[in-house]
């Protein structure tokens, strides 16, 4: 007879061990999945986790780690603040899209003027766009008690339609021969989020992600507001008696995560992606949820988790072209990781006991 028993204190050892264990289990079960798909599991795992960093073409893939990791970390940091307080923003994908539309729109409004002020303005517009989009569920929750999970998610679908409308209408490239999509910002110097050091993948989004990590770390460990977030998540009643204003917390957490997601979208559209197009978003907003949990909602953990997730994206691409592994297999792989993580979390707060229960 196996039963589980609550621990008096969460196990610190397990809190660190479970993410590692989850990754290992995902590799094993992912290997089984790849074997079922008729691929050599060891080769597939090696292609995903080894090739991008140490393989023959690593010089090409390593910068990608920063390019793909930055938006994931940026979004996940914001989400983690809310998740810690029990505020569930799962519409980061929508805020990411709106941030990109606003950022690109602000830049394209000045085309073809060249000025150093344009890029900062775009950053501001992107952040504001994401913030405003997240404020919809925040204000509705504060004013009417509407469920923020459902509203923020509905707004993803609205944002996707808005994106389609923008790339076919308002922001469409007038010199694009009728193809959908905006002008390419990579070819517009003042609006281009270029690499700061060529060949490293280091662009302004990476810098923003690092600032966000430090900011979140200080906020959570040193600031009163961070304390309020943690107390609200762990003991909502205690927080209420302690004088935490829940409405302000909702506005701050949702607003902050929207702002960061908007920034991520803006840096993506002005840099690696280059233009607003119908298929601009690739699901970073959803993958960031996995990143946030994998990083244990801890800013430093999120950096590690973001890089690992970026690795699976890049490795997945390589496995797709070299081994013919389907793109969806990587999605399943990432989903599996979240499952194992959640399932293993029980070990942090509970002890597994073997033998029959004593009669009370």
């Amino acid at each position, binding site marked *: 007879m196996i039963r*589980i028993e609550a621990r008096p204190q969460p196990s610190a050892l397990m809190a660190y061990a479970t993410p590692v264990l989850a990754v290992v289990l995902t590799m094993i079960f992912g290997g089984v999945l790849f074997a079922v798909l008729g691929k050599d599991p060891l080769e597939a795992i090696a292609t995903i986790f080894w090739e991008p960093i140490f393989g023959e073409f690593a010089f090409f893939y390593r910068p990608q780690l920063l390019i793909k990791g930055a938006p994931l970390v940026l979004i996940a940091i914001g989400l983690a603040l809310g998740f810690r307080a029990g505020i569930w923003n799962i519409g980061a994908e929508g805020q990411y899209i709106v941030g990109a539309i606003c950022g690109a729109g602000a830049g394209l409004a000045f085309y073809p003027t060249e000025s150093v002020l344009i890029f900062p303005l775009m950053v501001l517009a992107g952040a504001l766009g994401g913030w405003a989009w997240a404020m919809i569920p925040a204000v509705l929750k504060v004013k009417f008690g509407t469920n923020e*999970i459902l*509203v923020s998610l509905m707004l993803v679908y*609205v944002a996707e339609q808005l994106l389609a409308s923008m790339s076919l209408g308002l922001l469409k490239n007038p010199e694009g021969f009728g193809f959908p999509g905006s002008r390419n910002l990579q070819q517009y110097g003042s609006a281009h989020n270029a690499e700061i050091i060529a060949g490293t993948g280091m662009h302004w989004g990476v810098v923003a992600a690092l600032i966000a990590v430090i900011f979140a770390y200080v906020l959570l460990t040193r600031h009163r507001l961070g304390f309020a977030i943690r107390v609200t998540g762990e003991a909502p009643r205690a927080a209420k008696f302690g004088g935490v204003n829940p409405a302000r917390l909702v506005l701050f957490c949702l607003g902050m995560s929207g702002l960061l997601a908007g920034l991520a979208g803006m840096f993506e559209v002005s840099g690696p992606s280059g233009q607003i197009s119908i298929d601009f978003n690739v699901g970073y907003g959803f993958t960031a949820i996995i990143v946030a949990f994998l990083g244990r909602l801890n800013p430093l953990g999120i950096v590690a988790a973001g890089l690992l997730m970026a690795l699976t994206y890049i490795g997945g691409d390589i496995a797709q072209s070299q081994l013919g592994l389907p793109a*969806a297999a990587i999605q399943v792989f990432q989903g599996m990781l979240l499952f194992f993580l*959640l399932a293993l979390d029980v070990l942090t707060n*509970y002890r597994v006991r073997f033998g029959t229960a004593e009669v009370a």
Partner: protein
Amino acid sequence: MDLSAINPILLIAAMIAAATPILLAAIGELVVERAGVLNLGVEGMMITGAVCGFIITVNTGSPTIGFIAAAVGGAVLSLLFAFLTQVALANQVASGLALTLFGLGLSALMGQSYVGIKPPRTETTPLGPLADIPVIGPIVFGHDLIVYLGLAIVAATWAVLTFTRVGLVLRAVGENHDAAHALGYKVKRIRTLAILFGGACAGLGGAYISLIRVPQWTEGMTAGVGWIALALVVFASWKPWRVLLGAYLFGGITQLQLNLQGAGVAIPVEYLAMSPYVVTIIVLVILSADKSRAPGSLGRTFHASG
């Protein structure tokens, strides 16, 4: 713009069909939530049901077997959720999200060689001369079996929850799991069964989209219907008949905007396509003032020793 191209009788009949997937998913989730569990994985279970039903139907040629497979597929996926939340005591919100992300990936993987295939047609129920009655015939009697099955499930859910001992126990578990446990009811077993029922219903709903509504397989084809179903349960204040009403309302809007797109209304297609989601938000705002109807233990983890 040519509004006369819209035939009101066909429109109403199509609205009923459009409402069916939302109805099935929502009634399943209603039972799950009445048992005190919040499963945000409806979208994932629907899309898994959609792909399972599609694959089996294409391979066997029988939509009936396909729909059964869809229900089984949805239920199997929901079993993962049941394991996470009932055995591993994981957070229900996070587990539900995981289920959706995993389901979307899994379905894309399973369905990749089925893109672009047309499934065998699902026949409408042979109700004989009834379907030939003018106006009422096509609206009420001209549907496939799943539409009627959905209505039957709503009626049965209402009857079971209101009049039977099983329903009473389920509601007790949802309202106060500690009290139900103290009375000797197996909280986890009851909740697991409710989750399985929810998964099967969501799977059926998903298959209705891939086999009858569209009918084709494309990645992510449920496009948020599962989330609308979740909103619908709140809208319905956890009452079965109100779920029916809500589903027809949302199905109606979805169908109406499609017809308006077809009729070439001067509003851009993208803005019409947004409307079901925007309406969902508006309805949530109007109805979220009254939260008193929510089951008392909704979303809380149950552990006997705690």
